[in-house]
């Protein structure tokens, strides 16, 4: 056990820190100051955040853990963690490209063919193609295997019918990755395929709508007999084998919950800001809760260091990632709840804590609700019997 960073890792941290500091300042200047930056879940804010994403790409910070050939830096998981710590420490903006880079890309690396990788990944890193996640449907949320959107084999491609919903930033994205039923005779988990779909096809309609915070961060996507040509994506629109979509998709949920979706840096930065808020507006009644929340953010960092140590030693991420997701999502709610209590009557004003609180509340819902995660932890980690 050795909890120190190597000189190379420290140098990596210093480089990231310097770059972020300089480029954040430049990005703010470009838009006339941070106060003019709107949420990335609004149309205007999304466009502003795109300019940030392109900066990241040009500095080769958009996807640090990817191979250099696809626009990354071949960074180790350790360096990825360091970068994330620095990113949130600097107060850099939420990544509007996140669902592509952190959820689709790992699946493309694992299941994609070379042509798909060569096309999809660099364009994703460069924020030229913007990917949204098309899993949920009006009648299939937690029970994802109940999806009914269909992809029917036709000459030279697929015909798409059905509807996706809750699609994050769907109204601003150019592409969707998602699950479609390709074998209407097969039930539940079978007969599903993982497809890569440009959203500008004829017969695809995207309607954005307001989330809890009022931003147009949600969309529903309608497919009315849209023709998806096989060559819409070089290497093909099918990711993995036809009918294997469930298995391919589950690989994505593993990485989402387990590690890459919410790095510790994010919550450490929030916890630090909360400590600063407390110093400005102390309230002895909330002190123990503050300390407890700070410790839980720190424990999340330690848990992650333990996980990465295991992964670096050749282990693979298993169902234990489910408790991880419960931990960070509940922590995020607590951190923001304490902040609002510290703010007292000012809590009702719109502001970063109120905005963050509203977003934190979605954590226990998205990426598999926390009830579903508890089922997974109990059945697959503890081995309790299924019903």
């Amino acid at each position, binding site marked *: *056990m*050795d*909890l*120190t*960073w*190597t000189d190379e*890792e420290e140098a990596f941290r210093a480089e990231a820190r310097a770059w972020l500091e300089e480029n954040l300042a430049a990005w703010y200047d470009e838009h006339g100051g941070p106060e003019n930056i709107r949420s990335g879940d609004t149309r205007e804010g999304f466009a502003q955040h795109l300019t940030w994403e392109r900066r990241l790409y040009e500095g080769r910070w958009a996807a640090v853990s990817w191979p250099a050939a696809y626009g990354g830096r071949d960074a180790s998981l*350790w360096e990825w963690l360091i970068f994330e710590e620095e990113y949130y420490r600097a107060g850099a903006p939420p990544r509007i490209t996140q669902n592509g880079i952190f959820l689709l890309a790992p699946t493309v690396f694992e299941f994609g063919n070379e042509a798909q990788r060569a096309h999809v990944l660099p364009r994703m890193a460069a924020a030229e193609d913007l990917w949204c996640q098309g899993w949920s449907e009006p009648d299939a949320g937690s029970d994802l295997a109940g999806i009914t959107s269909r992809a029917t084999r036709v000459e030279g491609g697929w015909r798409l019918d059905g509807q996706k919903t809750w699609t994050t930033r769907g109204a601003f994205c150019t592409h969707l990755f998602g699950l479609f039923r390709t074998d209407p005779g097969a039930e539940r988990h079978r007969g599903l395929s993982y497809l890569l779909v440009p959203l500008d096809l004829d017969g695809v309609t995207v309607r954005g709508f307001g989330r809890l915070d009022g931003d147009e961060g949600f969309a529903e996507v309608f497919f009315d007999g849209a023709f998806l040509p096989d060559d819409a994506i070089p290497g093909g629109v099918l990711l993995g084998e036809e009918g294997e979509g469930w298995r391919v998709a589950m690989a994505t949920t593993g990485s989402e919950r387990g590690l890459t979706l919410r790095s510790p840096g994010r919550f450490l930065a929030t916890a630090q800001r909360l*400590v600063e808020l*407390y*110093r400005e507006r*102390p309230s002895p009644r909330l*002190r*123990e809760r*503050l*300390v*407890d929340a*700070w*410790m*839980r953010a*720190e*424990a*999340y960092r*330690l*848990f992650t*260091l*333990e996980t*990465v*140590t*295991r992964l670096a*030693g050749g282990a693979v991420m298993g169902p*234990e990632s*489910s*408790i991880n997701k*419960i*931990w960070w999502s509940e922590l995020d709610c607590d951190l923001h709840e304490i902040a609002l209590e510290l703010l007292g009557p000012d809590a009702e004003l719109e502001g970063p804590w109120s905005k963050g609180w509203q977003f934190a509340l979605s954590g226990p819902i998205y990426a598999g609700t926390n*009830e579903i*995660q*508890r*089922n997974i*932890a*109990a*059945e697959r*980690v*503890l*081995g*309790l*019997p*299924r*019903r």
Partner: protein
Amino acid sequence: MHFGFDDDQLAFRDAVRELLEKECPPAAVRAAWEAPPGGLDRTVWDRLTEMGVLATLVPEEADGLGLDERSLVLVLEEAGRAALPHPLVDTAAVAAPLLAGTPGGEGPGPAGVPDAHGIGMVATDLGGPYVPCAADADWLLLRDPATGALHLVDPATVVLRPVDTVDGARRAAAVDWQPAPESLVTDDPAAIELALDRGAFGAAAVLVGLAQRMLDMTVAYVCERRQFGVPVGSFQAVKHRLADALKELAFARPAVHRAAHSLATGAETRARDVAMAKAMASDAARFVGRQALQCHGAIGYTVEHDLHLYLKRTWALAAAWGDAAWHRERVARALGV
């Protein structure tokens, strides 16, 4: 960066686990409830001594194992899993390194005291006023209430007032004694502070082991116990309680492991890290205990079932060496709030 254990550390843990499974089954813990003061069976303790466990933190020059808290932490978790009644934290985590004069300690101890590796069984009041196994110990490490200085005292020279504690295997007593210059070990505040941190860390590691044991027992029980024609572990209310128990434990454990690292490396953040570990381990173990009891139903609410042995030790240790609130206070000060 490597936040894990090496093969030697794991092998050491496995050897201790094997020993404790054999020599410290629930029946041995029950026997410790029953034995008269001074009558604690020493079979397992002698084996631990032979293995060098008591001298884990004692340098090789002083005939110890020359290891640090990163090795000891896993052993203490095993002691928790077994609810070992003997004062292993007091002896191996606190007294042995203090008397051996490892960094921060003053050592060697007062004249007439055997070398640290041969210290025997030490019990201390550093963790609280009720000294565990006080009548069984070979030496008492006591804090002078007036000066805070630490003394190593022969139990024959003190008056013990046994107390009834919730965990009978604690075998605790209050001690009436008089500090004397000959018994002084150290009055160096840094050494005393370090001894306290080592004790709190040790208790945290034991709590992690206790929690793991209670979780394991409960998982096994709910898979077996049937109601409504199915194992009760198939009910979602039961599953969610145990998933939460697993989660609390899984996140407290790395905090305890980090405290081991901070102690071993003399980190600047040592006090904060130990405080965090003890606070989280106390809370997690008590939480796991609540879930364990509820999921056992009435059988867990008897003294005939073994659960109470682990549950009551948990309550005792959660309150000893500073409870969660006390340690959160220390973290608060470290954070400057």
